[in-house]
């Protein structure tokens, strides 16, 4: 740290989000500009470009921090290569920050209510640099852990109150103690990085931004439980995460942090990455183990639980990426510190991935107990286009939709379950008034139906039938009694499915029926979609009161069936209309029903 304190630092977000927004060209532009201008010579300081992990505000990528020693760091957002010469020239050479391009007050607001612990290194350190990691307390956790007996390490985790961040919320320390208690010399540790929920990317960001942190968490667990071999089961759709983690693992082996007698601390731990083949169900621990073994990803009955008979028939402990990341911090700061954060039942912070109709999509880390409202409105700036909030889907396809009334729910394991959703891995999909809740249930069910492994009957066939009923409702063919039928079968599917996928897949249906029953009824009885979202239910009629007479719809109509004159309400000729929905999509005023 000391040697770089005098340098100018340019932190560039190089998470997947950053790269997608052009981070590489920004980096190239900075490098080119530095060389061209001879910046280092001019300012008499070295200029370091740090490729950091994600900072959370992915919607505004590429985010760039310029830190000039002795000054406050300045954050620019929406940075492009074209903008770089200006930043270099004005900010770095003339010390006049480009005010117009600075991230607005929303960025401060975005960070204000967050407590970025797991993310403290993401966006700050060079994700690929072991030195940077060590400079930020890296590997001090494991060093502290080995001063304790393995049993004490587990006690410490128990005391911290850490619960599994994969969604189930099982107390981590207790889970470790089960695996520890199973006799046997040969035990496995698995890090579940098969983050499959649509709209969830917390684990990816952690792996991309702080891979060593996850390795350290796994080392602590391996020491405590006595596992000699660890797998990180990472979905292959995360190439950058895999690349960075692999580089981190390689570096650790090179430097003796992994392998025989790790860091000279007297225990052995080997690890490798197993890339998944794209099945959602492999996030389920028994299916995940089957996949590592080279079998088809299919769930297996429990018991025997993995702690007793897991991977290759040996005792196995599985935790999620975020859980392992938390472990490192528990050992940096102590269990008491950790348990001081959060609520009675949920300690520490939780990372959420916000997507959908919210202003600032991205990743936020808040202490457990923050309300949903705070997350959506205070941190993420509220609903896009200032539309009305309708619901938030918490917990991905396994979770549930919470309506506005439930927005005061605190984000912890128990409150969310009470409200009819679940913490899940932390995906939050925000929906506004234009979203049809029947359609959203259909969307999630379509996902789980396709991702079912096909092993047990209720999940394989039940979800498909459920989807067909939802489809017929959204097509205007719903029947009297369909809601009751859905509820009845949802209950049976939940009760009878083999693994978590089937046991939770009906949740979006049940929670939308619970909070938005009237929408279902409108579809079935009135053959109408209150959100005008289900296209088969559109009447292709212009609502006179809503029409702003803008004339956009006739322009997009491919069959020229919309009559419009300046200052007049548009009229759709239903005889010629092909119901292609181009006009509906184009109308900004929701004036076509």
């Amino acid at each position, binding site marked *: 740290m000391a040697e770089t304190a005098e340098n100018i630092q340019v932190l560039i977000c190089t998470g997947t989000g950053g790269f997608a927004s052009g981070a590489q060209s920004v980096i190239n532009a900075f490098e080119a500009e530095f060389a061209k201008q001879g910046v280092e010579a001019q300012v008499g300081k070295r200029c370091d470009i740090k490729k950091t992990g994600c900072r959370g505000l992915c919607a505004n990528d590429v985010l760039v921090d310029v830190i000039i020693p002795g000054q406050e760091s300045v954050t620019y957002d929406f940075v492009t290569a074209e903008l770089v010469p200006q930043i270099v020239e004005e900010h770095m050479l003339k010390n006049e920050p480009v005010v117009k391009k600075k991230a607005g007050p929303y960025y401060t607001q975005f960070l204000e209510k967050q407590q970025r612990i797991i993310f403290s290194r993401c966006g700050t350190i060079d994700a690929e640099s072991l030195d940077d990691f060590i400079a930020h307390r890296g590997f001090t956790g494991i060093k502290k852990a080995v001063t304790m007996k393995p049993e004490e390490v587990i006690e410490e985790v128990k005391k911290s109150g850490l619960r599994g961040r994969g969604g189930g919320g099982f107390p981590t320390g207790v889970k470790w103690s089960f695996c520890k208690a199973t006799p046997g010399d040969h035990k496995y540790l698995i890090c579940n990085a098969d983050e499959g929920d649509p709209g969830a990317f917390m684990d990816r960001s952690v792996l991309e931004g702080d891979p060593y942190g996850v390795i350290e968490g796994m080392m602590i667990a391996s020491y405590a439980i006595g596992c000699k071999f660890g797998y990180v089961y990472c979905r292959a759709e995360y190439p950058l995460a895999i690349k960075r983690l692999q580089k981190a693992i390689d570096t650790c082996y090179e430097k003796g942090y992994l392998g025989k007698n790790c860091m000279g601390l007297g225990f052995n731990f080997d690890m490798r990455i197993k890339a998944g083949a794209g099945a959602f169900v492999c996030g389920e621990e028994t299916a995940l183990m089957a996949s590592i073994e080279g079998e088809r990803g299919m769930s297996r*009955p429990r018991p025997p639980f993995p702690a007793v008979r897991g991977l290759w028939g040996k005792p196995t402990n599985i935790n999620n990426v975020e859980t392992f990341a938390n472990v490192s911090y528990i050992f940096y700061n102590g269990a008491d510190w950790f348990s001081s954060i959060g609520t009675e039942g949920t300690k520490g912070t939780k990372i959420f991935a916000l997507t959908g109709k919210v202003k600032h999509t991205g990743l936020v880390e808040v202490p457990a107990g923050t309300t949903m409202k705070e997350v959506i409105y205070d941190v993420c700036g509220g609903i896009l286009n200032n539309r009305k909030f309708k619901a938030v889907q918490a917990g991905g396809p396994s979770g549930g939709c919470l309506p506005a009334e439930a927005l005061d729910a605190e984000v912890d394991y128990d409150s969310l379950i009470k409200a009819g959703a679940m913490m899940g891995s932390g995906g939050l999909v925000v929906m506004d008034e234009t979203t049809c809740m029947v359609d959203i249930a259909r969307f999630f069910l379509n996902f789980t139906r396709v991702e079912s492994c*096909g092993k047990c*009957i*209720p999940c394989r066939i039940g979800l*498909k039938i459920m989807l*067909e009923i939802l489809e017929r409702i959204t097509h205007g063919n719903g029947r009297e009694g369909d809601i009751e039928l859905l509820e009845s*079968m949802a209950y049976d599917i939940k009760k*009878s499915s083999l693994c978590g996928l089937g046991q939770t897949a009906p949740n979006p249906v049940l929670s939308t029926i619970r909070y938005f029953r009237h929408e279902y009824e409108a579809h079935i009885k009135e053959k109408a979609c209150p959100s005008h979202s289900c296209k088969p239910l559109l009447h292709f009629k212009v609502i006179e009161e809503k029409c702003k007479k803008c004339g956009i719809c006739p322009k997009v109509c491919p069959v020229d069936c919309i009559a419009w004159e300046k200052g007049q309400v548009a009229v759709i000729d239903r005889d010629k209309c092909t119901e292609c929905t181009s006009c509906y999509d184009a109308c900004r005023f929701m004036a076509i029903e």
Partner: protein
Amino acid sequence: MVNLTIDGKQVTVSKTATIYEAAKEVGISIPVLCYAKKLMPYGACRFCLVQVEQMKGRLIPACTTPVSEGMVVTTISDEIKKVRKTVMEFLLVNHVLDCPVCDKGGECDLQDLAYELESTSNRFEGEKFDLPTDEVNPLIERNMNRCVLCGRCARVCDEVVGYGSYSFINRGFETKIATAYDRGLSCEFCGQCVSMCPVGAILPRPFKFKARPWQLKEVDSVCGYCGNGCTLTLGVLNNKVETIRFNDKIGVNDGNLCVRGRFGYSYVNHDERLTKPLLRKDGELVEAEWDEALQVVADGLANAQKGQGAGILSGARLTNEELFVLKQFAKTLGTQNLDHSGGECYKGVTEGLKETIGISASTGTFPQIEKANVILAIRSDFYETHPVVGMVVNQAIRRNEAKLLVLADKRGKLSKLPGAKTLLTKPGLELDILNAMARVLLDEGLAQTEGVDGIADLQAALANFSPAQVAERTGVSAEQLQAAARQLAGAKNSAILMAYGLPYQGLNKELATAAANLALLAGIPGREGSGLYLCGEKANSQGAIDLGILPQGNGMGAQAMFTAAAAGQLDALYVVGEDPLSSYPDRDRIAKALDKVPFLVVQDLFLSPTAQQADVVLPATSFAEKDGTFTNAERRIQRVRRGISSPGQARADGAILTALAGKLGSSLAFTGPAAIFAEIGKAVPAYATCSFNEIGPQGVVWGGESLQPASRKVVAVAGGSEVEGDFRLVTGSALYHSGTVSTKAKGPMAVLAEPYVELSREDAKALKVADGDLLKVAGNGVELKLKAKVGNRLPKGVLFAPYHFAEAQVNRLYKGEAVIAVKVSK
């Protein structure tokens, strides 16, 4: 033991039991679809869900959940009923429900379950499946429209058979059971999947539209092919065996069968079965009446006895009772020239084992193999000769993590099993490896030498069998054979397996002796859970040995009889249930003998090549047509039951023999199997432990589960000698056939219809030979043309030709040696 309560009933069961098994103990049946006793818990169908008071809030699958102390289980409640019914509704939405034309109708688990759950209506609707059916192969028809995806086929193929033909493909509702690349089935065709399928998705094609299950008469018998002694339940309609029924309730095979057992039954119904005696008149074989034929035979044999004598040669597929009568008949006739299997291929048992462990049988039982920690299979063909024991080996590996060592000159099915270590030796040198392993045990102090005689002599004889020396000769590395020896000695339970039979005559006595030496040094014979298994190729090979169907006194054995006949020194030969011309080593010599012998009688099912040379041919009966007992290769005496009557005037061997004896003026009578079995007991003490009617569903194992050796003596055997030449041919069994009889059965012939010679890819490339090309194989002064089969099993320079096919005349090349030097050209 664990105590629990199920529906108010107290149950005490072993702690490894599942709730389902515990419930079964007290007569409570929980509905299941994907569960199968012999497979690992799977939990796919969800019909077995029950409530457990200690696990409130969820329903618990009874078939996968182990019991625990104090558990309170409710197996039926409104909630359970509702869930089960919903699951059934789901299943029936897309199922084709073509029960009226489905062969499974009447014994379909899905039908039964729907009936039990009173599933009269369905709240859901959907399109019926319309998937193509697999009708490519002639034996197993797959109609995936009826599939319930219980996975039993895929599981049995993997867990039991070790083949892995099936897997689930696709995801979600589109999931289905398929083969690699979703092609037609191409496998061993053991039909285990057929037996496991709870619905009509996988059916035996030969049985299609043959009978409704309830029309079939079920007769529990024993398979007539190999020495495994699998229970075969014949499905009989109108005096015809229409199918083989699945039966895992009795016998030693747990319902497992191979292609021969399951699909090889059709020879009993074959059109070419002999139905009337044939007499040679004016050079032609013409039909005759029994009385006339028997008189000719009686006179012919009696005349021969007055001259240079007659010889009797039996097959090993007669029942014990028939063999006993045969032996009595030989006495009546007054000949000591008696034998049961050509080439003395059983000498490993009668001489090798006898000299070492003092008994002539395997020491353990097959179920013990599943519990073995280390298994040494000598000659990979063990899976080919005894497939169902091979399946037990696979289960030992998969369930109990047994280590498999295969000592062979080629890689067979066993070599492919998980973790199998193959000690691939040059052909004919297995002996050297066994010797070297024995030496390792002695050198490293791992051998159990206490109470074992001959140690010093053996030690001296093994001077040239150091691992390094043997490695040099055989091509198996010293480390590998040392590791194998240590593993064998260090295991809690170990099993040594070796098959014997007509094509394995060469060095068989030496191999058995070396195996017995090794077994003794590793403390295997007589140890509970361990065993030395020498398994006969035919259904009653062990019975023939037990009953002493061997040369009597100074009489001649099979080989000697043929030599004598060829030299004009034997006046009559009576061949019962054998086709020496097709299956015995050295065909040319056999042909000469048959040509020279003045009077030849053949008693068989078919007009075999040997029978075609006969003066009299007597039509006999198959295993399906007679009552009696077989003794399998683990000494298990089991009941063979008559399922059908014989075609035409064919008669059981026992009946023919007693009638002949009558013609010779003897009072020998076939008094029925029970009475004769009692007679056997008087002559063979091991058979005196029970009466015929006391032989239960599991048979009776004479000598007990772990037969104690009568002696413990190691006997030095010389090593094999390497056969020179570019190519070395070995013969043996092909998986799909057993002896020559299976070539008359549609099932095995559908899978493997032609003889072939197998060679490595490397050799094929060098010879520019492709699969199916004709190859000239020359050796022992004979040249044969055989179709080439190119594969991965064989090392370079080694060829394999199965011996089953009479027309291939492989036994012209093979004269009883372990390895034959041959030249190969295109």
